[in-house]
């Protein structure tokens, strides 16, 4: 049984983190928690189903996987794809470095997916619309 770091397309959620950055974040997190990493699974760009990780688990067995963020799991896939993802990986422990949360099992994954959906549907302020924290201050005063 193996512990793997999983890198994905750099664009996920509100962030753009190149694979090297993802590796640095997840490796640092593993080290700080005393987790020994055995391998790195690189998911290809433009993919969002974690199919490579699922293949590795089904053929070689995974114990833990470490990702940067909850946004990297297939939260917006079709229902049957989400179901297949959960079936394949529900016994694997997921560790999300940026959010600092970990867990495993169907209920955990469904809860995480619901949380990502909520964040994704939420409107955020657009960074490009503001030039300084003064602008943000004015925004607060206008509410």
């Amino acid at each position, binding site marked *: 049984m193996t512990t793997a770091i999983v890198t994905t397309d750099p664009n996920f*959620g509100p962030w753009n983190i190149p694979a090297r950055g993802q590796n640095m974040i997840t490796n640092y997190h593993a080290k700080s928690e005393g987790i020994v990493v055995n391998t790195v699974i690189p998911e290809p760009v433009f993919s969002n189903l974690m199919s490579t990780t699922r293949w590795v688990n089904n053929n070689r067995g995974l114990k833990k996987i470490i990702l940067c963020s909850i946004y990297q799991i297939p939260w917006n896939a079709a229902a049957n794809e989400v179901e297949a993802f959960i079936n394949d990986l529900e016994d694997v422990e997921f560790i999300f470095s940026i959010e600092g949360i970990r867990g495993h099992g169907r209920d955990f994954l469904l809860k995480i997916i619901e949380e*990502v959906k909520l964040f994704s549907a939420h409107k955020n302020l657009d960074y490009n619309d503001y030039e300084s924290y003064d602008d943000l201050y004015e925004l607060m005063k206008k509410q």
Partner: protein
Amino acid sequence: MDIKEELIYGKGWVLVDVDKPESLDRLCQSFIHEANKIVGNDSILNINDFIDYLLTLNDSEANTLKLKLIFIKDLALNLQKSFIESTIKLTGHEIFLQRRSHVMFNIPGHTQPSMQHIDGMSGISPYAYIIWAPLHDITDDSGIYALDQHSSMKIMNEEKQNGYVMGNAVHDYQFEPLQMPYGKAIIFNPFVLHGSIPHKGGLPRIGITNRFQSRLYPLFLRDSDFFTPCNI
């Protein structure tokens, strides 16, 4: 002026009383229980023991301990529930809550625990609020200070002329830390300059802090990395 008006249009901060003392007590008990596990010698039976223990730590050890304490389960939720009436008045029931409370120490003889700053310059939404509560009575100058928001932004703008945010305009200002009994908290908006100063009291101070906001308002740069959705 009600609490929301005071925070947005008034001085930008208010002192509030605990709404559910049992929740704050439970938070403290949980804190002590977990702190004991982290420290690992079963010698910490109450908050005063923990205060004494902090005196034995250097800067680095205190910082390492803080990083471990933020993972205490439900610390953030219990803090928010302790001040639930104030929270609901400001944000309603559906909120984004900081995933993990920050635990703040001010230990005599240590370097400045929290440099003066406004949270609004760190990517937090302008619609967020900050709550800070001590875990024991604060009767000296070890507590948090907070300027009114107009003075805060005046100082920040003076600093901005020089291209930085912590120069003489900030350092020359005379800050007056708040003395607060256990059961009080300060809530402020993200544009209130705040921090703490090295103090001459004999004992360390412990405070915890959350950021929270209504889910009806947009987030800014701090997203799932910092907040979690929560119904209170």
